[in-house]
């Protein structure tokens, strides 16, 4: 990412295009993460059982409907941990962008430490800030994960027995209802 940042940022300057550093930072992180993310999403879609596609096609859904309603919701749930990982890596990797003089957290810390000659205190503080940032991301993702999984338990409507069912599967009159076991 350091190389990418330098090549893109100074390369653009050679081409006569001067980027704002914040814009450059977002642009470079997007490109860098985009490649990893695309692979993660692809893996998520591939990991969805083939039977899910077949079942959706068998009830007449188009490819697009299958993707939107059946496959992607499952794929997204499956890739959430990796996506969270990627976000956290992103937050921490943003510090390498000081090579193109983006004034991010690490760059600021270096300046502050240099100005006051207090290295440990400054870096300890930014360590805590990084920790808070990454912890919040992982917490938010675990909340989303739990939300997507839905409740652990489910409500049974009516009685547990299937007395209302037209087709009984109860133990009574088992002999009579299973001629194929004779």
């Amino acid at each position, binding site marked *: 990412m350091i190389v990418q940042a330098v090549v893109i940022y100074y390369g653009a300057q050679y081409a006569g295009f001067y980027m704002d550093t914040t814009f450059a930072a977002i642009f470079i992180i997007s490109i860098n993460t985009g490649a990893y993310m695309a692979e993660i999403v692809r893996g998520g879609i591939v990991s969805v059982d083939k039977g899910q596609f077949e079942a959706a096609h068998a009830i*007449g859904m188009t490819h697009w409907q299958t993707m939107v309603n*059946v496959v992607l919701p499952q794929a997204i749930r499956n890739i959430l941990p990796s996506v969270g990982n990627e976000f956290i890596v992103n937050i921490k990797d943003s510090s390498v962008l000081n090579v193109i003089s983006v004034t991010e957290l690490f760059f600021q810390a270096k300046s502050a430490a240099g100005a006051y000659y207090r290295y440990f205190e400054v870096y300890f503080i930014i360590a805590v800030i990084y920790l808070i940032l990454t912890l919040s991301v992982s917490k938010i993702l675990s909340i989303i994960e739990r939300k997507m999984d839905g409740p652990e338990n489910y*409500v049974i409507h*009516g009685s547990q027995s299937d007395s209302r069912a037209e087709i009984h*599967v109860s133990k009574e009159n*088992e002999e009579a209802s299973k001629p194929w076991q004779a």
Partner: protein
Amino acid sequence: MASVIEVKGLKKSFGSHEVLRSIDFATGKGECTCIIGSSGSGKSTLLRCINLLETPDGGEILYHGEDILSGNVNMAQYHARVGMVFQQFNLFNNMSVLENCMTGQMKVLKRGKEEARANAVKYLTKVGMDAYINAKPRQLSGGQKQRVAIARALAMDPEVILFDEPTSALDPEMVGEVLNVMQTLAQEGLTMLVVTHEMGFARAVADEVVFMDQGVICEQGTPAEVLGNPKSERLKAFLASML
């Protein structure tokens, strides 16, 4: 009697392996046809070809006399009229039981939410799963899942349902509950095409039994003829091994 589904000279190969070698058979309205045969004889492939999950290499599949391979038939409508129940259930894991039965109706048949819900609950009640409408598939037992899968197929109000070994992944007790449901459906006059290893079910419920071996239909006829009085050596050996 006019046949609902008619298969003529159907061929399918995977690489150099010929799985189906010229299959001909027809199933009439309200008939329950059981397809039996050993593993690898092409039963499942035949069913998957009829539902176009596999593309046949040759032959014709006629649905009410129209060749569905010709490209003139609306595939979504065909799939809606011909339901399928899988060995591995294949319920949509991201949806509740109720949503599983509603989504096809809403997306494919463009039914309203209320209508789809009422219809879904009707069929879930029929298979005795209406109490579980909020459950996710992973919270259900195999037999319950398969009953929901049958309700999902029924909710589309299909004309034909294809069952691909619906009880093979279930324990003996659950087999009973699923076969109960299927027997009731057969008695109600639903056209069914069942690939099964349950000879008892075939004997009791089927109107016609088809025995397949090595990609061809060896024998077909009523259960009494085929199961009671097998003619070919192959079928005799197969039936003997089932006992």
